[in-house]
């Protein structure tokens, strides 16, 4: 067990706790709330809080993308699906769930927590970001651009193929007549 040292109170640390608590609370609300639309809104808040966590790490571009893509685009689709299926909420929320699924979910939850706990305890944590200077630099996004378009060129172009497939797939799924 390494010696735990509590760092002095600092702006990132305070914000980390704020965002972490909000993320956990809202994440809890996602599964506790009976109304699916409320759950979706709670999930939006969770995603925004996670974006805040990215910010405290200095990953500004990722934080912005997290909000724009996840909270701003994907969750709109979620809401549309909820509205399309006309879900107005299960009366009683968790109480309405059958006993069997509850036990299964509980067991899986315990397994997940043990797994994560053992990971946290045994993993070797890198101290800080790989290159803190890169995060602090005003050219953060520019660096991402340069890396993405040179070293990670192939994955990037593969992504465009993936997007193309998604595009075709969504039309095939949603179109009634061809």
């Amino acid at each position, binding site marked *: 067990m390494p010696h735990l040292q509590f760092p002095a109170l600092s702006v990132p640390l305070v*914000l980390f706790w704020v965002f972490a608590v909000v993320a956990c609370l809202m994440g809890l609300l996602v599964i506790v709330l009976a109304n699916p639309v409320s759950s979706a809104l709670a999930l939006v808040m969770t995603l925004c809080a996670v974006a805040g966590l990215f910010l405290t790490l*200095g990953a500004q571009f990722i934080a912005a993308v997290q909000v724009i*893509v996840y909270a701003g*685009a994907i969750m709109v689709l979620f809401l549309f699906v909820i509205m399309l299926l006309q879900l107005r909420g299960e009366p009683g929320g968790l109480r309405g769930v059958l006993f069997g699924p509850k036990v299964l979910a509980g067991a899986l939850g315990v397994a997940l927590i043990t797994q994560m706990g053992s990971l946290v305890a045994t993993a070797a944590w890198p101290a800080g970001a790989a290159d803190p200077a890169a995060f602090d630099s005003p050219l953060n996004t520019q660096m991402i*651009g*340069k890396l993405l378009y040179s070293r990670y060129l192939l994955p990037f172009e593969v992504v465009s*193929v993936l997007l193309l497939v998604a*595009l075709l797939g*969504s039309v095939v799924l949603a179109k009634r007549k061809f």
Partner: protein
Amino acid sequence: MPVINAYMPALLMLALATGFALFTVVASRLIGPYRPTREKNMPYECGIEPVGSANDRFSVKFYLVAMLFIIFDIEAVFLYPWAVAFRELRLFGLIEMLVFVALLLVGYIYVWKKGALEWD
């Protein structure tokens, strides 16, 4: 200086705006009268009793729009770092972007030809 310090004022603005919104909603509820009646609290339907439910099924079109939006939004997100780094990437960057956009253009034309952009 951690990066987040530059964001503190903007995050504070978020908190202030939220506070303002909360305060105003609560204040107006307290200041204004509150005399609900059954008729007053009915959903508006041009003066008659509401007929049927408000959650009628809606067109799958909206769902498709949301899907297309996500895909093109992700494309835009990939183009931001490209745009910012363009002055250094130069010709190479241009070609990469053209390939990227051309691939999506193929999908876009397909979507258009299949009539997914029409509102019938």
